[in-house]
């Protein structure tokens, strides 16, 4: 079942000359892990902001969990269904103690105290930050802060979590931490994840990759289908993962090798085949 559906979604920022999104029609399955890739200005962040009713469509419709995001009376239902994690962890942490920050959404929902306690403990455990419950957020590393921010969104018990470049401001180890937590969430709890990113390696971990360009969907498919189109990606000013590039460079026509080597192991397998041939 589709949890998010957009129908001919169009959006133009005030004072802008052209549309940031022009006719995006997509449907995202519940429980899937979707990565949205695109160059700067491709409209990927604008798209993400529509899934949470931060922006409302200029034309077309967005349905989140079956609810039209333009319906103001259902705003909280939309935001409860699709939680949003932003790029800068510093600018989304409200409280001065980790557990109080995770509790923020539950407090706004007016939940009873025992329920808040339960959810806070659960969500901190889900992102592996339980031992930091009483810490001050500004003393944590970037990756840890971003995991706290994720826990803060999870506490609403959303069915879908939308992340707008959550790793853009992190160092490589922080990035790995966050991506591991996200993958685990998707696999273990069946949470729908929509990851906006410009790291190919992160997108390769998803079930589905959507590439956007100039407000339109340019490519859509499994990571293998998308990343094997090395030339098409170059046209979209994106670089395929290094493994794919290597295989492609060795055998551009794809006579011996299939350009679907996403992981290092697959790449090694392909190279062995090449050497034998």
């Amino acid at each position, binding site marked *: 079942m589709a949890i998010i559906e957009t129908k001919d979604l169009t959006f133009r920022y005030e004072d802008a000359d052209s549309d940031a999104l022009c006719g995006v029609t997509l449907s995202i399955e519940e429980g899937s892990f979707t990565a949205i890739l695109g160059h700067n200005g491709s409209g990927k962040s604008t798209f993400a902001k529509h899934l949470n009713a931060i922006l409302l469509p200029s034309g077309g419709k967005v349905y989140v969990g079956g609810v039209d995001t333009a319906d103001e009376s259902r705003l909280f239902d939309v*935001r409860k269904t699709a939680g949003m994690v932003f790029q800068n962890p510093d600018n989304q942490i409200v409280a001065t103690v980790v557990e109080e920050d995770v509790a923020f959404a539950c*407090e706004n929902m007016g939940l009873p*105290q025992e329920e808040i306690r339960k959810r806070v403990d659960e969500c901190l455990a889900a992102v592996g930050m339980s031992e930091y419950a009483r810490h001050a957020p500004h003393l944590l590393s970037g990756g840890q802060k971003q995991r706290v921010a994720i826990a803060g969104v999870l506490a609403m018990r959303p069915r879908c979590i939308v992340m707008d470049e959550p790793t853009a401001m992190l160092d490589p180890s922080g990035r790995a931490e966050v991506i591991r937590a996200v993958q685990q969430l998707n696999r273990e709890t069946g949470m729908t994840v929509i990851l906006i990113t410009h790291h190919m390696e992160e997108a390769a971990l998803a079930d589905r990759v959507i590439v956007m360009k100039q407000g339109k969907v340019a490519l859509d498919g499994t990571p293998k289908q998308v990343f094997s189109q090395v030339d098409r990606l170059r046209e979209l000013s994106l670089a395929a993962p290094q493994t794919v590039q290597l295989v492609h460079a060795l055998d551009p026509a794809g006579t011996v090798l299939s350009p679907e080597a996403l992981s290092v192991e697959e790449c090694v397998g392909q190279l062995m085949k090449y050497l034998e041939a």
Partner: protein
Amino acid sequence: MLKDITLGQYFPGTSPLHRMDPRSKLLILILYIVTIFVVKGLFPYLICVLALITAVIISTIPPKMVLRSLRPILIIVLFTGLLNLFYTPGVELFHLWIFKITREGIATAAAMALRIILLVASTSLLTYTTSPMSLTDALENLLGPLKKIKAPVHEFAMMMSIALRFIPTLIEETNKIMSAQKARGADFESGNIFSRAKALVPVLVPLFVSAFRRAEELATAMECRLYHGGEGRTRLHSLHYGRVDLIAAILAVAVCGGAIALHILL
């Protein structure tokens, strides 16, 4: 300079002072401040100083941290002390040109300096042992009755807690901008106070711009987490008075009452 600002720095702990209800801490602090400004004379002050030292020991906060909180106010203390020293009329002890020192001047100067020191030290102790979030909860709760006359108590408390939350972030950012400007040849250390203040302009402008951007992002993030004002909000930690608070209240009333009684009697 910037790392000395300790306002709003909370040191998590489990001492009785940490466990106390923030409302009682706040009320006791107000009582204490009133006391130090009401009393005069050696013995009442001695009681006040001893009470604060005892509180610091109980709190398990390193005394060094409390002393550090005093460093930024050193100039104010000296200034008030000197003013009082030279401008209090009374029995003259010493005279040089237009400066004269009186016995009353010495007493007032010492008292004023001590008052300011106690005021800042006791307030820092409160912020060291109380998370800013529970402090604003306490304020919101204590000022709750004002909601009836439509005073924006919740909004005020929220603004304050966010301001406190962003102090370390903005200090860190200021340091970063200062380093960036220094790397491009800015000079913050030499020159008189005016040229130094002027040198800070290229630090403050980017700092303000970024603060506004942060504010906008934070507002969006809060809305995404269903924030809609104080209506119908519940709390993870609700406030309740316990036995610790009762004992603290009795002690505080005894100490402050004792100091005031001594002041009246002597």
